[in-house]
């Protein structure tokens, strides 16, 4: 960490920004090793405390995110509404695909050209906080009097890294159980009563089989991995140790969950070799009756007028309910210079978006803010409230820097098992060992961060 965050280093960074704009990633790396944007932040912290409203001169804030799907227009209209309501704040939103977003934000931040506000997935917050990309929002949380009670507890906790708060929860997006009413009727099932426990679920699958329908296409890719993680928890397995430092999915409970999933393929309830995202397309085409998919799929299926579908909470196949979820969180990025005006205006924006996240819920998300979630307007939305009922049983990957790597290791192993290429027990054991090696390396890697 540089000892002097004064003007000298600032000029240097501006010059370096110019070089970096011209050059490849490696050169960016070359030029911005020292100093670090965090230095600027610490200088900023002595500034006056923030206020809950913004009365200052006109200010423009950059807001970057990865909402390029059906969710993009919903966020854009929220931003437009905010801009109309606030004469002295203009928020400019820019979206790019998440994968690119996660690469370009750190590069932009390191050259001093980053945005003010960003959105991030809950399991990425710790990683980017450790990598000095995020600016702690402790000041924002304090001024807005944000409290855990106002949010779903799991999402609120996930925004903490190293005893500081780096994000404000915007939404929760769990997976749910989508079902096709037409196909259920064909198999002689009650289309208004989707199965909610193991016995009725298996009975429904058998009924489909008799009607010559494959009841539940099992994806060996991300959707299947989210299903496995939910099932493993339902059967009583913990995927990680409490501190998140050990991968613990090599347990008999996790194996039981995986074998149940594999059984669906082996018993013919799912075709083999389901590529990504064939199970969702098959559901959309009215071929696949049961599909465990993310809440965001609502907006994919809604326009299909020929498709008579509903959505329910995940059935409890194991001992007790557990549902895999993700969460979008609002973050502030490190900058060369955060002016008090920008800081204040950003706090106002975050506060406003969280309060008005009903508009975001329409885009297929469960608002993280309890007040919005418990409002009658939210309850009146189609489909989305079903997912809110799952909320207390949702869980996220641990919020540790570098966690994405061990998730990838697990998901790759699941892929091999569900494609019939690998023994489930061996795959779980081997991948847990590999993930522990990766977690160990991550600890070393990020231990030097502070």
């Amino acid at each position: 960490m540089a000892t002097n965050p004064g003007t000298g280093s600032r000029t240097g960074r501006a010059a370096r920004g110019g070089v970096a704009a011209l050059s490849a990633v490696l050169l960016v790396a070359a030029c911005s090793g020292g100093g670090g944007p965090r230095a600027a932040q610490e200088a900023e912290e002595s500034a006056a405390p923030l206020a809950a409203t913004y009365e200052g001169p006109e200010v423009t804030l950059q807001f970057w995110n990865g909402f390029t799907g059906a969710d993009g227009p919903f966020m854009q209209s929220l931003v437009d509404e905010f801009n109309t309501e606030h004469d002295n704040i203009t928020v400019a939103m820019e979206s790019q695909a998440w994968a690119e977003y996660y690469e370009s934000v750190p590069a932009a931040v390191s050259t001093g050209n980053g945005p003010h506000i960003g959105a991030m997935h809950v399991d990425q917050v710790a990683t980017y906080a450790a990598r000095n990309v995020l600016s702690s929002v402790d000041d924002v949380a304090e001024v807005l009097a944000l409290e855990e009670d106002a949010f779903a507890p799991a999402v609120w906790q996930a925004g903490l890294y190293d005893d500081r708060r780096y994000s404000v929860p915007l939404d929760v997006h769990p997976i749910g159980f989508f079902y096709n009413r037409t196909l259920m009727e064909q198999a002689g099932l009650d289309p208004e009563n989707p199965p909610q426990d193991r016995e009725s679920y298996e009975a429904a699958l058998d009924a489909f089989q008799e009607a010559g329908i494959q009841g539940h296409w099992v994806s060996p890719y991300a959707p299947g991995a989210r299903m496995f993680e939910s099932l493993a928890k339902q059967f009583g397995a913990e995927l990680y140790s409490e501190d998140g430092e050990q991968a613990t999915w090599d347990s008999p409970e996790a194996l039981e969950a995986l074998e149940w999933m594999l059984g669906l393929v082996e018993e013919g309830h799912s075709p083999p070799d389901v590529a990504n995202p064939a199970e969702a397309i098959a559901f959309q085409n009215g071929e696949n009756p049961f599909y465990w998919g993310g809440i965001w799929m609502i907006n994919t299926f809604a326009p299909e007028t020929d498709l008579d579908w509903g959505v329910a909470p995940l059935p409890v196949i194991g001992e007790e309910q557990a549902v895999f979820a993700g969460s979008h969180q609002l973050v502030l990025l490190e900058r060369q210079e955060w002016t008090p005006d920008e800081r204040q205006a950003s706090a106002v924006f975050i506060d406003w978006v969280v309060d008005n996240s009903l508009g975001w819920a329409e885009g297929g998300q469960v608002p993280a803010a309890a007040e919005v979630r418990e409002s009658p307007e939210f309850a009146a939305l189609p489909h989305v409230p079903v997912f809110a009922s799952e909320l207390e049983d949702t869980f996220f990957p641990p919020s540790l820097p570098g966690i994405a790597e061990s998730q990838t290791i697990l998901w790759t192993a699941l892929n091999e098992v569900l494609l019939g290429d690998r023994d489930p027990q061996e795959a779980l054991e081997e991948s847990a060992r590999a993930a522990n090696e990766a977690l160990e390396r991550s600890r070393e890697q990020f231990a030097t961060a502070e």
Partner: protein
Amino acid sequence: MSVQTSSATSRAAAAAPARPVRRGAPWTPYAFLAPYLLLFVVFVAVPAVFGLWISLHNWDYLIDNSPFVGLENYTRLFDRDSLAAGDFWQSMRATGIFTLYSVPPLVAIPLAVAVLLNRSFRGRTFFRAVFFAPYVLGIAVIGVLFGFILDPNIGLLNDYLGRLGIARNIPWTTSVPEAWISLVSVTVWWTLGFNAVIYLAGLQDIPRELYEAASVDGANSWQRFWHITLPGLRRVLVFVITITVLASANMFGQSYLITHGGPGSETRVAIMFIAEEGLGNFRMGSAAAMSYVLMFFLVVLATGMFAMFRRWED
């Protein structure tokens, strides 16, 4: 060259006969080279050397402390107990397999296409455009397109094969070797036109008289191909083989988008793994070390090929 000299001479002659021929300042060639040289230095040479430096550290450009670790990033790759090293070598193997299977068809099929397109027939220009057309498409388009065509359960190809009663539900993207067959076929379809165009240019340089003379001597078309076309294309062939080997060894998009590196990590090629390590897991030092190991193999391969071709040319 000759044109330049003669015009310079005539101008000199017109002015004053005694004055020496003006050939420009000694630095003229360097001035012409400068723009490219600058780009080369900034975008290739400096990063290449700087990458070596990165590979000796546990590097993250956003973290202030990037400790020097010496050759650890390299020795780790040869550590038998390290699972990460195992993954790296598996990805190198995947790159090797793809290169091995894709280079022969990418050298042979475009040659056949070029020979056909070099004959005169109606609609020749149209067909030249048709064969080149896929190359214009970006890998993202190719990826999405073939994702739908090759899907084992809901894909177009298996649907037609099923209707024709040939085969059912072949796992084109979810099993090996089917996934390799898919990736190689897609790549051949996609980049065939590029190699064909290079061959075409080479074919047009072979003097017509040679073919006429051979015909007079009673050579059949196979003999003409073998004794005139192929030797005439020797240099072009060397070029095509070299760039095809390098392009195949750098394959990334096809397996990233069509097979997602799967099944498991069977088709996760080296570039994909290195990108994951460096940009996904933020181990830029380790990723840089892997890049140099990959580069080492490519340099050995390229040197071997050149040595072989030199013997062939003699």
